[in-house]
């Protein structure tokens, strides 16, 4: 494990085919790599470069720009506690301190058992539900310290496995388009005309 597996390469090609230029698939493929290995390995980045026609340095340049990509292993559960204004007004800092105590790690740290990594996150678009957090990008709203402890217990006991996959998997549902329905992505240079329906007549 490191380069993408055969199945994932097949999936990668399917994703690439949806874009007029394969470079556009870089971020989706990085997610795929992270789903495969739990983090993004150098081998995977080199492999992605081959698939989308970029140098490894370019792929790494893109990958390292984005928060979600990790370049060494993290806990099975990545807990992101929002610390931006709305959550801060509603006690995010207290929640973070509690979380640090409960898990026995500082922000950015991973518990000894490799189960949990704790991070401070920026605004998660749940500002009305403050303070909020995400576990592997699944939300928990208006979290009290007591509720946080319950959450950690449930996760550790595997009681939430159905809802929350291990770190690396974000969406469990993928876009799938059957060839017969797909119009097909065309490189921009191969298109010069207006779409057929732009002829002043109704399309139906």
């Amino acid at each position: 494990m490191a380069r993408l597996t055969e199945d994932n390469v097949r999936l990668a090609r399917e994703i690439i085919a949806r874009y007029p230029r394969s470079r556009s698939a870089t971020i989706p493929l990085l997610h795929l790599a992270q789903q495969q290995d739990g983090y993004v390995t150098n081998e995977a980045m080199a492999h992605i470069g081959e698939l989308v026609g970029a140098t490894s340095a370019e792929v790494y340049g893109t990958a390292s720009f984005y928060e979600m990509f990790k370049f060494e292993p993290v806990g099975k559960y990545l807990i992101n506690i929002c610390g931006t204004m709305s959550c801060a007004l509603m006690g995010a800092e207290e929640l973070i301190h509690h979380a640090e105590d409960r898990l026995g790690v500082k922000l950015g740290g991973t518990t000894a058992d490799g189960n949990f990594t704790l991070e401070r996150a920026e605004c998660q678009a749940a500002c009305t539900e403050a303070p909020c957090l995400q576990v592997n990008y699944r939300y928990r709203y208006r979290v009290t310290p007591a509720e946080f402890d319950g959450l950690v217990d449930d996760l550790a006991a595997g009681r939430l496995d159905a809802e929350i996959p291990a770190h690396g998997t974000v969406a469990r549902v993928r876009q799938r388009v059957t060839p017969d329905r797909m119009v097909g992505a065309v490189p921009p240079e191969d298109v010069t005309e207006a779409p057929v329906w732009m002829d002043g007549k109704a399309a139906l």
Partner: protein
Amino acid sequence: MSAQGSYAHAPGFFVGDRPRIVTSRFEYEDSHTLERYLATDGYQGLRRALARPASEIHDDVKGATVLGRGGAGFPAGTKWGLTPQGVFPRYLVVNGDESEPGTYKDRLLMERDPHQLIEGCLIACYAAGLSQCFLYIRGEMALAQERVAAALNEAYAAGYVGKNVLGSRFSIDITLHWGAGAYVVGEETALIESLEGNRGMPRLKPPYFPAAIGLYGQPTIVNNVETLANLPWIARNGVAAYTAIGTATSPGTRMVAVSGHVNRPGVYEIVNGTTTFRDLIYGDEFCGGIRNGNELKAFVPGGGSAPWFTPEQLDLPFEASQIGPAGSMLGSGAIMVMDHTTDIPRAALTLTRFYAHESCGKCTPCREGGTWLERILSRIVDGKGTDADIEQLFEVGESICPGAFPHASSSKLGLSATPFPYRMNTICFVGPSAYAPIHSALTLFREEFESRVTKRHRIPVTASGASS
């Protein structure tokens, strides 16, 4: 704690008996399914649109003046018209990167009514002659990605998306794309860079106005999720019905999220142009006042980037033409409320830290200045600052945004408003946004800083190093 699994109602979403355009299905448990969508007039707008020439639909959207809901508030129909004549292909990029502090609406629209968004995309592509649609969803929104993916799969299979939509001559692919955690990617040119597989660094406008030179260098329309979600309703009920709601300059409704120290923080679909901040914060059908009957100290009217308002601005309506002169902006419909117990410098820090952390690193003032502001401010917050630090905040701010920076009026302080917008030495608004909260806090609540710092005799503060 409420898990996102349960959807008896969208958490924090309150209905009330107001006209609803984009949230009409929210109370249904299964609002995200094709079945429910079809049972509630789903894809009727598309069917009607396809029965007419594209140009007529474009004219309708122009006529409805659907203001952009992403922050800039630019009318969608007009934006579509800015693409250069005869240049193809053209693309639609849907901005679902919602991450402006305080903003919470696009995620709901994607999780709760994905088909409505898809139908909106289809209508836009048909009307503006766009060859492919890219639906860019923020990376951290797992459920939104799943719901939209599932909806797209349903819609493709049922013939609403893809080859010959509804058996017509209109064919379009909608490609689901998702980010990986970078606020600045919400900026449209950065969004395009990101979609091209690059680091999400904004491009300079001009020359890179997406409508002219966008994705792959082609004309590209970037629209916000909520903006597009309005289109099916308009296509179904007509322009007149839409403009009958709200005001002439701000027709229809818009979603706003009110967070912070209110009794009922939540997301509300409100009538545009007429609803005031007082209605929202104190009205019973909305937030029902400040928690524990506390006093309102200040509020951010339009997302973390917006200069702050105080109770003196409560009676302003949701009307851009009135908010700008008052010294702020409506932005992304995010209101963050601070009661009298709020530690102002600390609150400002949570925003400045955000923008400093989210800087893409391209512009010197933002990359270096944002972090510098954050360091000085945290020093002050921790009681380790000096009065020279306060001056320094203004100095660094001046290097990011030269000249007068907008702020609200205050009779208490004898301040008159400096209108929006500001001048900036940066490419996009992230740099200035790191300074905005500091400038508001310092202008309106300076004593809270003064009381925190130790006095020193002044050290040089002009950039040339000369003492002043």
